[in-house]
Structures are given as C-alpha cells and as structure tokens.
C-alpha cells in the first residue's frame, strides 16, 4: 500500500514538473518576437517584468522590415528595466563587402581633410537619408510592440 502511494506521488510530481516546465517554456516563448532569427537567439529575454515608467516592457522586440531603397533594414530593440539597452540589426542592406582587401597605405594621390561645417547658402542637399529613415521606421515599430 505504501509502495503504491509513493509510486503515485512520484508519478504525480513528475507530471506536475513536466507540465510546469512546459508552461514555463511557452511563457518564455510568448515573449519572443515571432521572427527572431537563429543567430540572434542569444539575445532572448531572460526575465519578464511588469510595465515600467517608460511604458516599455522588458524583452527583445523585432520591428517590421523597412525599405532602405537598396535593401531592407530590420532592427530589434532590447529593453531592460524599461530602457532600450541595445538595438540589433536583423537585416541590413548587403551593400558592404566584408572580405574586401583594404590597402591602408593606398591612395597617395587623393586629398584628405577633416570634414568641416559650411555656412554658404544652398538650394538643396545630397545625403544618404534612406537608411536612417528605414532605421527609425523599423525601430518605432519594435517599440510599438514593447508598449503593447
């Protein structure tokens, strides 16, 4: 009789723990963004805290991809203690080659100077605004999720 009781207790506790573990796992998963890529899984949130004064929940939130003309920019905002502690690039226009051989002694003919602000009047401006606008767009959508 005693053996049966111990067996039942063992089975019950096993069921309880596996249920609990599974429940915990699904809780953790629920805080993860749906499109979290494998290479960034190390930045998954470890704790889930209630809303802080900033209105941002802790965790990692992935913004929607935004058009940067030459490709997509998609960022993840990592929130800790209600503050943005990191912004991770999930995708970025593939317009830089990481394996290019750079000769740092090169360019003897080309003039170099420190940039300096100019005050003369102008009719228009040339600049790379695309990436920064797409960055802001993707980040704000990530923060929307952190507020939701």
């Amino acid at each position: 009789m005693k053996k049966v009781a111990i067996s039942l207790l063992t089975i019950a506790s096993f069921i309880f723990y596996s249920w609990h573990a599974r429940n915990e796992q699904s809780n953790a998963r629920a805080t993860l963004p749906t499109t979290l890529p494998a290479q960034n899984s190390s930045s998954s949130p470890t704790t889930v805290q209630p809303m802080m004064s900033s209105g941002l929940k802790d965790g990692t939130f992935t913004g929607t991809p935004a058009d940067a003309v030459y490709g997509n920019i998609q960022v993840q905002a990592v929130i800790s203690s209600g503050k943005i502690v990191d912004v991770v690039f999930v995708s970025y226009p593939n317009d830089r080659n990481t394996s290019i051989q750079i000769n740092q002694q090169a360019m003897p003919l080309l003039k170099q100077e420190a940039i300096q602000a100019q005050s003369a009047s102008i009719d228009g401006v040339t600049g790379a605004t695309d990436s920064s606008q797409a960055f802001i767009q993707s980040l704000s959508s990530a923060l929307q999720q952190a507020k939701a």
Partner: protein
Amino acid sequence: MKQHIEHIMGMPINITTVHDNQAAVKEAFEYFRAIDNQYSTYKPDSEISKINNGLPKDAWSESMKLIFDLCEQTKEQTNGYFDIKRNGKIDPSGLVKGWSIKKAADLLLSKGVKDFYIEAGGDIQSYGLNHKKQAWRFGIRNPFNRNENVKIISAPGYGIATSGTYIRGQHIYNPFKPAQSITDIVSLTVIGPDIYGADRFATAAFAMGREGIRFIDGLAGFEGYLIDSDGIATSSQGFKEYVI
C-alpha cells in the same frame, strides 16, 4: 522658385523649378508613381513582385527587360559589386531610382522646363540656373549631423548621388589582419554625367569600402567625396572643380 514634394517609392521626391511649370511637374510625379507601381517589391501587384512569384519571361514588359539588361551591364562595370539578387529575389530598385530621376528630368526638359532640379532620397539631377541666375548649389550632408553640410558643390546638368549610412551596421575587416578592425566609411558622394550613372556607381563604390573612392577616381567623368567614421574625407582628383 517653386518647390513640389511628394512621397513616392518610399521617399520624399522634390521637384524645384524656377518658373511655374505645374503641368509638367504633375506629369513628372505621375511618371514616378507609374515607376513605383511597376518596380516596388512592396506592392504585390507590381510587375517585379509578379516576376519574383514566377511570372514567365515571355510575359515580362520591354521596359522591365531593359532595366534587367542595365543591371547586368552595371554588375559587369562594377566587378560584381552591383547586384540586384538578394535572398533569391530580384530587386532592381537600386538602379531604378537613378534611372527614373534621369527620365523624369528628361520629361521636364522635353516640356520646355529649363531651370530645375529633382531630388529623390538625397540623389539630385539639376539643369540650368537657380532663381538668382547662379548655378544650383547643393550641400553634402554631414553624416554625423543632419543639420550641417560639409561641402557646397555645384554641377549643373550633372547628377549628384550619396550612398551611405550614419549607422554602423557592419564592420569591415581586413582578411589579412583579422584581429585589426579598420574604420568604416559612412558617406560617399558621387558626381557624374547624369544621376543614373552617379547613383549606380555610388551604390557599388560604397560597397567597396575605402577602395570605393579609388574606383570612382578611375572612372572617366566621375568624381567622388568619401567620408569615414572618423570624419576624415577623401576626394577624387577632380572633385575640387565642383566645390564652391
């Protein structure tokens, strides 16, 4: 001076004319909208989206085939740095942007508009003179402070394009000295015979990193101004001719 701004192709497009040419300007914006409807990968009904979803080659429009030919040609001219294939999908928007600015400018010229510039997402094609009867003057935006310009340039009839980002998205490493990280480039401005050429070569040269300015320097008819993450700029040899 009349400034018209509309938001098309995911960016503000600015058409500034000295004289009132509303009908022609309206037509130019309509052209940009048609381009967006054909080439936007964000529109499921665009021709490019249909092609990416398997539309057979014999159903492609002539204009699309021309763009693909130009992309292929540009890829060869830039030693493979200009590539429209990404994650198995085709996206020619890096070429279509400069191409469409040039075509819209041609449209304005054909309607008798002489003094104007078109600026789309920081890329410029200008013709004629401004309202003070001077050559149009453009600032190169400081990549570290968007309210400042670091050079004032003038290149009437030419195209001016800037490629870059102030965000350090990736680092470039020297494969021969992997432990030593080298400084990024943040902005590359290219002046060329027209914005179509300037834009696609700015895109490809930026991908080359620091070598990009040498690539531009070696291109006949093109000049460049590269800014690195330390705020040090490198000019191609003939760039100073355009500086005011």
